[in-house]
């Protein structure tokens, strides 16, 4: 089974703190994604990465940065947390190649972590 693990289910931080959200996948996927989920807005893409050290802005990158030093790990960083960043954060990964780790996977399917609910006070 594909596993995408987010380090925290719940997180409470103070305004101005630097916040790290970690995501690890175990299927050697090339692509990793960070989404933000808010009621009535669905999922919005913050950043994504299609290779180690590669990153691209999504639809709402302001106030966020990312790091991908290893293929399996994709970190979302809030440099100075603000109250309007209180939200649910979802990490996902996918393969572009159709196979991964010896298993045949349908490419293009994104596999999600359980989410981190972040509250910034």
């Amino acid at each position, binding site marked *: 089974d594909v596993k995408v693990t987010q380090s925290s289910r719940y997180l409470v931080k103070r305004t101005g703190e630097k916040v790290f959200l970690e995501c690890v996948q175990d299927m050697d996927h090339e*692509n990793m*994604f960070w*989404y933000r989920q808010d009621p*009535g*807005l*669905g*999922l*919005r*893409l913050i950043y*994504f990465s*299609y290779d180690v050290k590669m990153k*691209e802005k*999504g639809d709402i990158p302001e106030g966020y940065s990312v790091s991908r030093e290893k293929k399996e790990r994709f970190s979302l960083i809030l440099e100075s947390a603000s109250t309007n960043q209180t939200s*649910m954060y*979802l990490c*996902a990964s*996918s393969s*572009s190649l159709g196979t991964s780790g010896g298993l045949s996977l*349908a490419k*293009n*399917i*994104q*596999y*999600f*972590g*359980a*989410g981190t609910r972040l509250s910034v006070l």
Partner: protein
Amino acid sequence: AQTVTQSQPEMSVQEAETVTLSCTYDTSESDYYLFWYKQPPSRQMILVIRQEAYKQQNATENRFSVNFQKAAKSFSLKISDSQLGDAAMYFCAYRSEGYGGATNKLIFGTGTLLAVQP
């Protein structure tokens, strides 16, 4: 830019009955993928079903099936014999065809919250 619209914020169905969730999208592309994802209260997003735009046949997965109308840009999800475990938020999503880079992005609708009444 592509957009995905789910016009039903909430739906309700009786156990064992059938329900259809609506999704429309806008694109100028001819090749793409469409997905329905389910997010139960546990929050783990799970793929329900997927459709390739070049396939005319509607995808089915057990009790879940889609009605894909490419010309109308419509992609509805039908759940037959609804079960209590089907209660969840359902998201429709679009992905462009292609390899690498921005084509790997999913564009999501705003979701439909499905309640299943016993």
